[in-house]
């Protein structure tokens, strides 16, 4: 018994397909509990009013946007080192989800920023870093789409993912530096975990768990789809060979 036996596509599908409804069920429970508790059962914050509640979508999606890239990095490494196709397909499957999470985080941030900072967008280090992360996702997805041969595409996107990770981290610190150079002090401090009171914190935990489960379920489902698509292509090729 080792984890690598799930690298067998057949075994992967057989194991994950029955799991998917359970994962989505747990997602629904966590999100309903977290969001209802967060939106309706928490008090309004002193200075922020009800806008504080955007945190229940904003923070989990932002976390998952970064975690999705980290997962892609691990999956790319596994593909490059051990050549498991499921791993490459999982990385491919995770990218659009990560991009969506990035967009959700940026959008909810803008919606919050408009009443609170008086602007939809500020060149704050965190915002800028997320925008750049979104660009990295775009490039990664575009490279997958552009290369017809699946193995070659998996190889090249994995290399891009490795290099991109280094540069994404580098950009994060560069942007931090750049903004401090422009303005005095940051416009917001997001170390909410330290300041936030338990009233807001517990529903947030549910929301985070919900987003993690949502990501997990979507990745499993999309990976299964990719595997089946590839199997379909192989079957089509076989059929062509027989008829030819």
């Amino acid at each position, binding site marked *: 018994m080792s984890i690598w036996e799930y690298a067998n596509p057949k075994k992967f599908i057989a194991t994950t397909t029955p799991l998917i409804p359970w994962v989505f069920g747990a997602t629904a429970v966590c999100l309903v509990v977290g969001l209802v508790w967060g939106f309706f059962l928490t008090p309004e914050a002193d200075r922020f009013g009800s806008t504080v509640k955007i945190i229940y979508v904003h923070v989990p999606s932002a976390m998952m946007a970064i975690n999705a890239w980290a997962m892609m990095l691990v999956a790319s490494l596994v593909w490059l080192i051990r050549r498991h196709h499921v791993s490459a397909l999982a990385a491919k499957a995770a990218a659009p989800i990560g991009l969506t999470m990035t967009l959700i985080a940026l959008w909810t941030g803008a919606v919050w920023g408009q009443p609170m900072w008086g602007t939809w967008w500020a060149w704050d280090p965190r915002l800028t870093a997320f925008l750049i992360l979104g660009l990295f996702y775009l490039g990664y997805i575009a490279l997958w789409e552009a290369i017809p041969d699946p193995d070659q595409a998996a190889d090249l996107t994995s290399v891009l993912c490795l290099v991109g990770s280094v540069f994404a981290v580098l950009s994060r610190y560069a942007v931090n530096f750049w903004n401090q*150079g422009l303005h005095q002090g940051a416009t917001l401090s997001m170390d909410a975990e330290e300041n936030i009171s338990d009233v807001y914190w517990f529903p947030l935990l549910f929301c985070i768990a919900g987003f993690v489960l949502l990501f997990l379920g979507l990745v499993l489902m999309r990976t299964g789809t990719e595997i089946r698509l590839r199997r379909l292509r192989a079957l089509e090729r076989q059929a062509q060979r027989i008829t030819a």
Partner: protein
Amino acid sequence: MKALLVRDLRLAIRAGGGFGLSLAFFLIVTVLVPFAVGPEADILSRIGPGILWVAALLATLLSLDRQFALDHEDGALSLIATSPLPLEAVALIKAFAHWLTTGLPLTLAAAPLGVLLNLERPAFSWLVLTLALGTPALSVIGTFGAALTVGLRRGGLLLSLLVLPLYVPTLIFGAEAARRGAEGLAAGTPILMLAGITAGSLALLPFAAGAALRINLR
């Protein structure tokens, strides 16, 4: 190695296009900026270093898709790959040739173009210094991007989408150092970071580019 370098340089200079084109592009972008933002001297001198950095970056990008594509089309790349030279070294030499024909002329041309943007006196030396430090990184990162997209039919647009986000840290530190230097602030940290990015890219990215070339030639 030398033969490859000399060959690339000859091709770049004689085959037309690459060499003069990026310089001309640099000139035109710089000339267009005052039309867009207005001719006020103080605005131009304030945004000048940043504009020249962005223009240099775009001009670098322009000649990147020729890096491997032409050699790939006529089969020269496969021949080079069968030579005893490892592909990592090929990537490094290609990047060096690209820098000699693009980065270096851009760095040298930046000072005269700075006159057009009304740069102040201390800004010139900072601009040239940061460009000299930063353009090698741009060439190496771009070579990596070109190696990724070499087999693709219409790789040019994809290449810019892949490479531009990778250029962000270089641009930030380069332009920041030039701006701080021009305004007489301490520019040591961004200069060191810029040099660090260049050194790190030079050391590591040829390996990534070599791996990408190997995958594409498979």
